[in-house]
C-alpha cells in the first residue's frame, strides 16, 4: 500500500487533503491555541526597521552643512546628503528633457542658481512648438519603420494636442523617457550577469519576485523619505517595478540560445564582449524585446502611482479627475497614457529591428535626409507659431502650445456612455452580484479564515513536498512562517482568498482567449494590442464604473484584479503557442493529427514553459493589484499598507506588510516553478 502511494501522486494529494480536512475539524478556533494561530513574535520587527531607518537617515554620521538661506549650520546626515545628490541627478535629466519640450527655467537654474535666474527673467528656455515635436516624432517613426508607424505616431501626438493634454502628456513622456531606458539597461545588465553565473541567478530570482510583487505603496514612503518627493522619486519607484520583467526575459532569451550560436561566435574570433553584444544579445532579440515591451508597459502602468510621490503629468491629472467623478475626462487621459505606451513600444521595436545596410553607398543628402526634413519641420513650426501669435490674440496660441484642458473634448460622450452601461446592465448585474457575494465570495472567505494555522501549513508544505521534496517544502514553510509570526495572518488569509480566486478565473480566461487568438496572425496581433492596452490603461479608471455597478464590495475588487491579471495569462499563452516551430506542426500533420490533437499533444506541451511563466506572472500581477483593491475597500493586507502612509511606524509597517504579500507570491512561485521544471525535463525541453 505504501509503495502504491509513493508511486501515485494523486493518491498523495488525496491523503494530504484528508489530513488537512481533519485538522480543520479538530483544531478549535481560539486565540490562545497555538495550533489555531501562532503568536505574533515578529510584532516588534516593523518598529525596529523604523527606528533603524530613522537612525540611518537622521542620526548617523552627521555633517555640519552651512545653509545660506537661514544662515546657520545644520547637521545633515551623510545618507541624506548622498541620496539627495542622487535624486538631483535624476531630476536634472527629467527636467532637461521636459524643458526641451515645454520650456522652463530649471535647467538654467541648475547652472546659475535661483538668485541669478530670478534677477534675469529673460533667461528662460523656450518650449518647442507642438507642431515641431509631433513632426519630429513622426519623422522618427518613418525613418525607423515606414509610413504606417509614422501615421500612428502622428495620430498619437495629434490626439494629445487636440484634446488639450499636451502639457501633462509631455511631462509624463519626459518622465518615462528617463525611467524606461534606465530600467532596460539595468535589466539587461542584471540579466546578463545572472546568465553568466548560476549563483547570481539563484540569488536574483527571489529578489526579482520580491521587487515585482511587493505592492508599490509599501515602498512609496521609503523611497520618498530617502530620495525626497518629486519626479525623481516617481522615477525610482518606477524603475524598481519595471526592471524585473526585463531581467527575467533577458535571462530566458539567453538561456534558450542553442550552444551552436555561441560556438559560431567563438570560431569567428569574438572576445567575450563581442560575443555578448554582437552575437548572443542580437540572437536572443525576440525575448529581450518582449522585455523592452514589458518595461515600457510597466512604466506607464506606474504613471498614476508615481504621481502620489510627486511625478507630474497625466497620472496626477487622472487622480484629480477621478476624485471629482469625471470619468469622461479620466478616460481621455487614460487613452493618452495608452497611446504613449503603444507608440513608445512600437518605436523601440522598430529601432531594435532596424538592420544597418553596411554596403549602401549614399550621398550626403541621402544619408541625412531625415535630419534635413526635421530641420525644415523645425523652421516651419517656429514660423507657424510666430504667425499664430498674430491670430490668437487672447492669450492662447494654438500653433505654439495648446493650453491645458482647452482642446476639444469628448468627455460628455464618454460620460453618457458610462451612464448608458449603468442604466442598461445594472439590474441584471445586481442579481449576479448578489449571487456571487452570498454564494461564492462570503463562503470562500469564511472558509479561508476558518483554517487553523497548522492546517494551512500542512496543506501548503505538503503540496511543496509532493511536488519538490523536502527542500521545497521547507522553503515554502519558511515563507509562511514569516507571515504567521506577524500580527497580520488573518489579513494575509483574506489577501490569499482574493488572489487565489482571481488567479483561477484569469488563468482560465487567459489561456482560452490566448489559444483562440493564436490561431491566426491577425487575431494574434489584435490580442497582443488588447493586452498592451489593458496593461497600461490605468486600473483606477475602471475602478469607478466597476464600483458603480458592483458597489464597494469584494466583487468590485475581484473584477479589478481579474481585468489586470488576465493580461499576462493571455500574453504568455500567445507567445508560447506562436513560438512552437512550424516544422513541428508539419511533422504533426504528416503523422496525421487533426487540429485538436495537434493542439493538445504538440502545441500545448511545447509551449508549457511559457504557460507556466504566464501563470506565475498572473500570481505576481494579482498580488501587486491587492493595493488597488484596497482603494475600493477591502480588509486585507492592502488596506493596512494604504494605512501605513499616515502611520508613525509607516516605513516599517509598510515594508513588512509588503514582504508578507511578496512571501505569499514567493511560496506559490516556488511550487509552480519546481513543477514546471519537472514537466520541462520530462518533455525534454530543458
Amino acid at each position, binding site marked *: 500500500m505504501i509503495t502504491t502511494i509513493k508511486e501515485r501522486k494523486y493518491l498523495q494529494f488525496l491523503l494530504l487533503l484528508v489530513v488537512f480536512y481533519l485538522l480543520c475539524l479538530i483544531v478549535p478556533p481560539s486565540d490562545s491555541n497555538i495550533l489555531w494561530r501562532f503568536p505574533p513574535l515578529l510584532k516588534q520587527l516593523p518598529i525596529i526597521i523604523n527606528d533603524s531607518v*530613522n537612525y540611518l537617515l537622521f542620526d*548617523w*554620521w552627521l*555633517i*555640519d*552643512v*552651512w545653509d*545660506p*538661506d*537661514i544662515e546657520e*549650520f545644520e547637521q545633515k546626515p551623510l545618507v541624506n546628503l548622498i541620496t539627495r545628490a542622487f535624486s538631483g541627478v535624476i531630476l536634472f535629466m527629467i527636467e532637461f528633457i521636459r524643458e526641451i519640450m515645454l520650456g522652463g527655467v530649471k535647467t538654467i537654474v541648475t547652472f546659475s542658481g*535661483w*538668485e541669478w*535666474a*530670478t534677477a534675469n527673467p529673460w533667461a528662460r528656455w523656450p518650449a518647442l512648438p507642438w507642431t515641431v515635436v509631433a513632426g519630429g516624432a513622426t519623422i522618427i517613426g518613418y525613418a525607423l519603420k515606414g509610413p504606417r508607424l509614422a501615421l500612428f505616431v502622428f495620430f498619437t501626438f495629434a490626439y494629445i494636442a487636440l484634446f488639450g493634454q499636451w502639457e501633462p502628456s509631455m511631462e509624463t513622456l519626459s518622465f518615462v523617457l528617463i525611467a524606461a531606458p534606465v530600467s532596460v539597461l539595468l535589466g539587461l545588465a542584471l540579466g546578463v550577469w545572472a546568465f553568466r553565473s548560476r549563483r547570481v541567478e539563484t540569488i536574483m530570482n527571489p529578489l526579482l519576485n520580491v521587487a515585482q510583487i511587493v505592492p508599490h505603496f509599501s515602498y*512609496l*514612503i521609503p523611497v*520618498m*523619505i530617502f530620495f525626497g*518627493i*518629486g519626479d525623481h522619486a516617481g522615477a525610482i519607484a518606477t524603475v524598481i517595478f519595471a526592471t524585473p520583467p526585463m531581467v527575467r526575459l533577458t535571462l530566458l532569451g539567453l538561456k534558450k540560445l542553442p550552444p551552436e550560436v555561441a560556438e559560431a561566435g567563438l570560431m569567428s574570433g569574438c572576445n567575450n564582449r563581442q560575443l555578448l553584444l554582437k552575437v548572443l544579445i542580437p540572437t536572443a532579440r525576440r525575448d529581450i524585446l518582449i522585455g523592452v515591451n514589458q518595461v515600457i508597459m510597466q512604466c506607464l502602468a506606474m504613471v498614476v502611482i508615481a*504621481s*502620489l*510621490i*510627486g*511625478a*507630474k503629468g497625466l497620472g496626477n491629472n487622472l*487622480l*484629480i479627475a*477621478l*476624485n*471629482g*467623478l469625471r470619468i469622461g475626462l479620466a478616460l481621455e487621459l487614460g487613452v493618452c497614457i495608452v497611446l504613449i505606451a503603444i507608440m513608445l513600444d512600437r518605436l523601440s521595436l522598430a529601432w531594435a529591428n532596424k538592420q544597418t545596410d553596411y554596403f549602401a553607398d549614399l550621398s550626403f543628402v541621402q544619408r541625412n535626409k531625415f535630419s534635413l526634413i526635421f530641420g525644415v519641420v523645425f523652421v516651419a513650426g517656429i514660423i507657424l507659431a510666430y504667425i499664430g501669435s498674430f491670430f490668437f490674440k487672447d492669450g492662447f496660441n494654438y500653433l505654439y502650445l495648446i493650453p*491645458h*484642458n*482647452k482642446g476639444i473634448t469628448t468627455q460628455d460622450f464618454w460620460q453618457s456612455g458610462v451612464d448608458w452601461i449603468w442604466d442598461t446592465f445594472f439590474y441584471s448585474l445586481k442579481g449576479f*452580484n448578489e449571487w456571487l*457575494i452570498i454564494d461564492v*465570495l*462570503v463562503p470562500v472567505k469564511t472558509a479561508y479564515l476558518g483554517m487553523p494555522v497548522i492546517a494551512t501549513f500542512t496543506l501548503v508544505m505538503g503540496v511543496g513536498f509532493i511536488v519538490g521534496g523536502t527542500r521545497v517544502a521547507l522553503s515554502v514553510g519558511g515563507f509562511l512562517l514569516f507571515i504567521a509570526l506577524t500580527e497580520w495572518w488573518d489579513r494575509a488569509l483574506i489577501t490569499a482568498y482574493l488572489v487565489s480566486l482571481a488567479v483561477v478565473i484569469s488563468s482560465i480566461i487567459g489561456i482560452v482567449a490566448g489559444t483562440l487568438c493564436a490561431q491566426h496572425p491577425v487575431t494574434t496581433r489584435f490580442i497582443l494590442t488588447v493586452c498592451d492596452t489593458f496593461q497600461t490603461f490605468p486600473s*483606477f479608471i475602471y475602478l469607478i464604473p466597476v*464600483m*458603480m*455597478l458592483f*458597489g*464597494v*464590495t469584494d466583487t468590485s475588487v475581484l473584477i479589478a484584479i481579474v481585468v489586470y491579471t488576465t493580461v499576462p495569462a493571455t500574453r504568455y499563452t500567445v507567445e508560447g503557442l506562436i513560438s512552437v516551430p512550424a516544422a513541428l506542426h508539419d511533422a504533426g500533420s504528416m503523422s496525421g493529427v487533426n487540429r485538436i490533437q495537434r493542439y493538445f499533444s504538440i502545441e500545448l506541451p511545447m509551449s508549457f514553459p511559457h504557460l507556466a511563466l504566464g501563470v506565475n506572472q498572473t500570481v505576481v500581477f494579482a498580488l501587486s493589484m491587492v493595493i488597488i483593491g484596497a*482603494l*475600493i*475597500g*477591502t*480588509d486585507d493586507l492592502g*488596506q493596512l499598507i*494604504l*494605512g*501605513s*502612509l*499616515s*502611520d*508613525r511606524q509607516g516605513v516599517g509597517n509598510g515594508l513588512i506588510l509588503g514582504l508578507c504579500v511578496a512571501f505569499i507570491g514567493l511560496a506559490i512561485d516556488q511550487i509552480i516553478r519546481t513543477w514546471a521544471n519537472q514537466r520541462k525535463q520530462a518533455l525534454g525541453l530543458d
Partner: protein
Amino acid sequence: MKLFKSKSIRTLVIASSVSLLSATGAVKAADSTAPIVIPIHNWSSQIVMAYVIGGMFEAMGSNVEYVPADSQAVYESIRNGDVTISHEVWKSSFGKSFYNAMGKGGVIDAGTHAALTLEEMGVPTWVIEKDLCPGLPNWEALKDCHENFTTPDSGGKGRWLEGPQSWHGELMPERIEALGLSDKWVVKFAGGADALWTELASAKKEGRGTIVFNWTPNFTDADGFTFIEFPPYTEGCRKADGGDGSCGSPKGWLKKAANYKFPKTHPAAYTAYSQVSFTTTQIGQMAALVDTDKMDHKDAGKKWLADNEAVWKSWAGM
C-alpha cells in the same frame, strides 16, 4: 558611530560654505529666491487654494513650485523640507499624520483658517426626502430603519460606509457599539474618497438608502447632504480618550502646516502665509469654480485672485 564623524570633512564643508557665503555676498534680509514648494492633492478646493496661495507668493516676488503629493504622506515630506507648506490640514483626516510628523520634528503649525469643518456620517438629502429613515437627521431614527440600508455583504444589517481605516481607526465601529446599534448596523471601510463619491452617485441612481462618511466644506454640499446628529461631542467622550464612545464628531479646525525653516528662509512670505485664513464660503467658491463651472484648476486660482484682490492683498501686506 560618532567615531566616524570626521573632523576633516567638517572643516572642509565649513571652508567651502564660508567661501560660498562670501561669494553670494553676506547678509540678506529679503526672502530667499529658492522656490516655495506647494503640494497638490486630489480634490478641487485644495488645488485651487494651492494656486491661490502660490499666486499670492508670486505677487510678492517669490518663486513657487507645485508638486503632486499624497495627502497623508505629504507631512513626512514637509518635515524633511522637500515640501514647504500644506494649506489644508483637516482635523480628523490628517490631524494624526500632522501631529505624528510634528512629534518627529520639522513641521510647524502656521495658524488656522476661519472655516470650521465637520467630518461625520450622513445621508444625501434625498434619502430624507424619500423618507427612507423617518426621523433623520436625529440619530435615534437609526434604531428602526436599517432594512433600507443593507447590502449583500452586510449580513442583513444596515451599512455605514466609512472612509479608509487609516482615517479614524475604530471610531465608527465603537460608536455603533456604544449607541447600542450593533445588532442593526455594521461599518464597512471604503478604500478612499473616490469610493465614497461613487457610492453616493450609484445610490442616487438606484434610489436606495446609503449612509456614508463625508465632510463639509465639500463639493457634495451642492447636491445636498445632511449630517446625522449624534449626541454632542464632549472632551474625552471618545473611546480612545477614555470615554464610552457614544458621541458625534466635534466641529473641527482646518490648519496650515509649514516646514520649520520657512519663517527663516522666506520671512515675508511666511508672515503672509500665517495670516491666510479662508472662510467656508471662500473655500466653497474655489471648489465651485472647478466642480460647477468646469474651469481648469489653474485658471480658477487666477480668477479667484482677480475677484478677491482686497482679501489676499491685505494678507500679503501689499
